[in-house]
């Protein structure tokens, strides 16, 4: 029951949201709903006749012992279920194409956020040079985090990534070591971060609040704790935050050094 309720909720969560919370999630939502409807229809079209035949045409001794031997193909029918699916998939691919082109194009006024991944965390750099680090919370032999603490922002090595509400962000991505991936949950965008290359994605979140960023490309031991918390705030508040009050660059750089040292230590401990 709880399961069904969850299903319903998840269905609704993706359905009928009048105002756009995040972009390009609104575009994803279009293709998602189209797919869901088509899928349910196709499943019904196949499963209902199947179940009907399964019940109706059962083996009955003395009555129905052999199937109809003449019924072994029908070019008309076979052509039908070649052509209709063909039309459906061509439509889906083409509609997907159109949406994808839009989804990949960052708006002109997008704010650029440089993101560099490392094992295991991210460094975010804002247009004015300000940096934020979000590094994975790891367990050590004698110190396992409690479930509620493993994904918490502690303000030191795991800081909030502030972004302004309603402003498109173009994230320019790369990695220092192995391949990672950048998934912004509310916006529904994923993009790998590949060493030696820069890739990009863009997103915009309209509703202030806290949201998840996860690493989605397996990157070794602490892949599963490689997350960041987006803090979406009104534009004015963001400007204030960006200008100062929080630590200067030197300070941030020191923190990063600490992060790297910690890294080595942690590895030794685990070995």
């Amino acid at each position, binding site marked *: 029951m709880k399961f069904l309720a969850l299903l319903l909720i*998840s269905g609704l969560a993706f359905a009928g949201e009048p105002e756009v919370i995040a972009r390009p999630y609104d575009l994803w939502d279009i293709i998602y709903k189209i797919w869901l409807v088509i899928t349910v229809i196709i499943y019904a079209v196949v499963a209902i006749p199947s179940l009907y035949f399964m019940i109706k045409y059962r*083996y009955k001794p003395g009555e129905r012992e052999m*199937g109809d031997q003449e019924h072994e193909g029908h070019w008309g029918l076979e052509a039908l279920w070649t052509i209709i699916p063909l039309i459906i998939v061509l439509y889906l691919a083409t509609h997907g194409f159109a949406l994808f082109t839009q989804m990949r194009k960052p708006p002109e006024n997008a704010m650029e956020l440089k993101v560099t991944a490392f094992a295991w965390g991210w460094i975010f750099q804002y247009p004015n040079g300000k940096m934020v680090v979000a590094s994975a919370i790891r367990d050590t032999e004698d110190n396992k985090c409690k479930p509620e603490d493993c994904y918490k922002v502690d303000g030191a090595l795991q800081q909030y990534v502030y972004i302004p509400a309603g402003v498109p962000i173009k994230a320019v991505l790369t990695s220092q070591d192995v391949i990672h991936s950048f998934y912004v949950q509310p916006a529904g965008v994923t993009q790998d971060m590949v060493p030696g290359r820069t890739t990009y994605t863009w997103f915009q979140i309209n509703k202030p609040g806290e949201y998840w960023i996860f690493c989605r490309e397996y990157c070794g031991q602490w892949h599963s704790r490689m997350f960041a918390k987006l803090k979406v705030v009104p534009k004015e508040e963001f400007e204030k935050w960006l200008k100062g009050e929080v630590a200067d660059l030197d300070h941030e750089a020191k923190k990063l050094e600490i992060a790297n040292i910690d890294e080595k230590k942690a590895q030794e401990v685990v070995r």
Partner: protein
Amino acid sequence: MREALPAHKPWFAASLWEWIFTTDHKKIGIMYGVTSTLFFIVAGLMALGMRLELFNPGAQYLKPETYNWFLTVHGAVILLWWAIGVWASFANFLIPLMIGARDVAFPRLNALGYWMFFAASVIALLTFIPGNHIMTMWTGYPPLSTMEGVGFAGTTALFVFIWHLTGFASIAGAVNFITTVISMRQPGIGFFNLNLFIHGIMAANVIQLLGVPSVAGAVTMLFLDTYLKTSFFDPARGGDPILYQNLFWFYSHPAVYVMVLPAFGIISEVVSAFARKPIFGYKSMVVAIWAIALVGFMVWTHHMFVSGIPDWVKILMSYTTLLIAVPTGIKIFNWVATLYKAAIDYKTPMLYALGAILMFLIGGLTGIPLGIPAFDIAVHDSYFVVGHFHYVLGMAVTLSAFAGFFYWWPKVTGKMYPEGLGKLSFWVVLIGSNLLYFPQLVIGLMGMPRRYYDYPPIESWVTLHHLQTYGAFILAFGILLALIALIKGALSGEKAPNNPWMSNSLEWRLPSPPPPHNFDEPPKVEKDYCPHGYCKF
């Protein structure tokens, strides 16, 4: 029928020596089957371990590197030993019987192939020794797998050798099966009255022959990069990690058809036998199989939609990917049409085969959005993908393999399996699997990333993980029941007649189990021979 056969020793009476040096395709088939099933069990147990860890958020029983090791072995073993390896068992045992041959074309190469597979199995077991674990995931992407000490990828060499040895076995098998079917058929058996199972196996093996060299090259470069410090994939020295992904998926996408086309073949055999009716649209079935194999080579970048390849390549391969849904759909519709005006006899193999069809449909329908970049961008490397491939592999392939086990069990062992236990196992497996795999689709849509050993304590996620773990244990219990049914049948089942299912196919005209040389004299194949009466035009 043929009472006057010369005395012979059945395969199960052979000595250890005879097993080791045998070149008999039936014994080799059985050895493949036993090896695959044992490794299927190992991979399943590791999955149960993972499910326990994921039951609740936070670190539970496993360290992350242990989880990653379990997941790597689970993935690699279930794919290479089970989803690919188990078909080598069916193909070896059945192909000569179905085409009226005494053995395969190259019996010694065949034996060598098995022993390479065995060597790969030894390497896989070596990864269980502490310090030798592999934690690359079955995909082994560089630079993670080539950089020591950064991400804890483990012993990359063992990962590479597993691919090399199973690849060698695959190529030996492919050369053998293809040659056998082309050159050793009894007169009267042609392209359009071959068993659909053989078509599936043939298409799968053509893919192996063309594809395995690509992945073998990729992992060889991985080896050189890791140990001899070459720089094929090292961006700092002019290499490109994306190159590996291209070479890897050029094989590993078509490889999913190596896994599923033989499964389709088994479904066709079983459905037409128990519907007591010719398969609907035999010709379009054959064309569909070969079309899938062909187009399968033109879609590999759908695994790389977010890797940083040019957008136009994504669009191109989005079209080719979705195109594969068409021949796949043809097969499903034809199976359903076969049930129309049938006389369906619900024996265990039929239940498994029908289950495989309806579950494969979910696997296929969830695969379509993954082929649309606009959709995939939100669910790539999420649990939605995990749910999708489990519906295809954990359900369609696994249910078909068990359909095949039960269906040919009387022929292989000469004994009938217990029907009631067989049917019960099906229902338990079906319920468990859906409880395990459906929540994966839902939680994936909610954003849960793949290959995570831990996850944030989001309430709905926790519930969905609980369901999966319950499902996993129900599924494991179902598989246990199925194995018990099979073993019980082999040990103490009733004696099987030559043709318990009243099939028209050639293998059922032999005694159960078949004598060492199969046919004492070449079987006479009627002019209008059809394996299930399904190819009269």
